């Protein structure tokens, strides 16, 4: 047993607070918008120059001038504003976004994050990820607990130290995987702590699939 993608997104949505401005990455993080509690005001930022991102358009109502950072067609809301990429990243780098939820290839126990390149493979670029993790106050990673290799074996993604090129150093505050939830004391020496287990997952399951050192502080 482990959390589904939707359950991981729902868990990430519990990190939202009323009045938050949030940037959601591609993949599972995008699903978080489906779990914003009713009555809570959360404005989504899209780093290509938009605050107040709405849902996908109805078929036939797509607007080529209205896309998100994943280049998907989206819609506007009454709260929406548009701005340039320079203003958008001023907002990000200046610490005005409350929360960034994004995917990762690897996270280290000190909060280091790798999610943009694998040496030897075609590199597509970091896009806005380095700015987001450097600039946003609180960074939550949502990812599968382990990577599945082509030969069927598994590789740990929660590591003592990332071996892939970094996206940022000491930037991750929380990691939500299909197996549980960890916090990271990225500024201090508190390291990584396991604070929740997914339904049906044991601490031993996690221990077996985690290279990083962590303390256990289950509620």
């Amino acid at each position, binding site marked *: 047993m482990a959390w589904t993608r939707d359950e991981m997104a729902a868990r990430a949505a519990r990190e939202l607070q009323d009045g938050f401005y949030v940037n959601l990455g591609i993949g599972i993080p995008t699903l978080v918008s489906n779990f914003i*509690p009713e009555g809570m005001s959360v404005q989504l930022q899209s780093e290509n120059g938009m605050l107040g991102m*709405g849902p996908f358009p109805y078929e036939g109502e797509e607007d080529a001038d209205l896309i998100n950072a994943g*280049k998907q067609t989206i819609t506007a809301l009454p709260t929406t504003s548009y701005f340039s990429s320079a203003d958008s990243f001023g907002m990000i780098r200046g610490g005005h976004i409350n929360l960034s939820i994004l995917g990762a290839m690897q996270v280290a126990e000190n909060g280091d994050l790798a999610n943009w390149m694998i040496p030897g493979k075609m590199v597509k*670029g970091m896009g*806005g990820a*380095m700015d987001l993790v450097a600039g946003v106050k609180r960074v939550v990673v949502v990812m599968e607990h382990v990577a599945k290799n082509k030969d069927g074996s598994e590789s740990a993604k929660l590591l003592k130290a990332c071996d892939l090129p970094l996206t940022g150093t000491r930037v991750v505050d929380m990691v939500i995987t299909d197996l549980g939830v960890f916090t990271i004391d990225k500024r201090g020496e508190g390291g990584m702590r396991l604070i929740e287990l997914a339904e049906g997952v044991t601490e031993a399951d996690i221990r077996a699939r985690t290279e990083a050192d962590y303390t256990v502080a289950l509620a």
Partner: protein
Amino acid sequence: MKKVHPDATDALAGLLRDGMTVMCGGFGLCGIPDALIEAVRASGVKGLTVVSNNAGIDGVGLGKLLETRQVARMISSYVGENREFARQFLAGELEIEFNPQGTLAERIRAGGAGVPAFFTKTGVGTKVAEGKEVREFDGEQYVMERSLFADLAIVHAHTGDTEGNLRYRKTARNFNPMMATAARVTVAEVENLVAPGTIDADDIHTPGIFIKRIVHVPAGEKRIEQRTVRKRAEAAPAGAGGGPV
């Protein structure tokens, strides 16, 4: 002093030379100056360094200039929606300098604003900071980044007046406003060309001072890279923030 040119080729006449640096507005295929890219292609100019967040897709946007091998080097944040790009890159025929998207945007903005260098925390401790000065301010580490300034910028706007005042539409704004400020010559294609005074002076995104030449290119069908929709029956996602608070 006439800024308006009859077509894209005319708007670029005399401005193109091999090996030059060109900034090209747009994010993905959104807000790209497609007619001007086409005119650059038709000119046959080559060995270009292109500053653009992305590199188009096969046969669309900057993909057109890749097909014809007119681009020698890209400065971008994210590429590779493009098979031809990948092929040339892996064959060592195309150079690429990756910049974090916000650093790219700010380097361009700085270039236009007379700021030769600035500090950012983006990329500290990563490959991006290699070979660059890293300095501490108030207990935090920052990397120094240099500005970008091009020989030519090509941008796309929704509306422009004959004075060069521009207004962008929705997320088609993206990199266009900064690029308009950061080149020796900026050429704009506009979907709608109007008389001065038509756009409210408070609503102008790019003042005409930055625009040397304009060409009216009525919007044809715009390409969409990722067409994502929801079904009519489906309710809007609970949150996504909407509505008065």
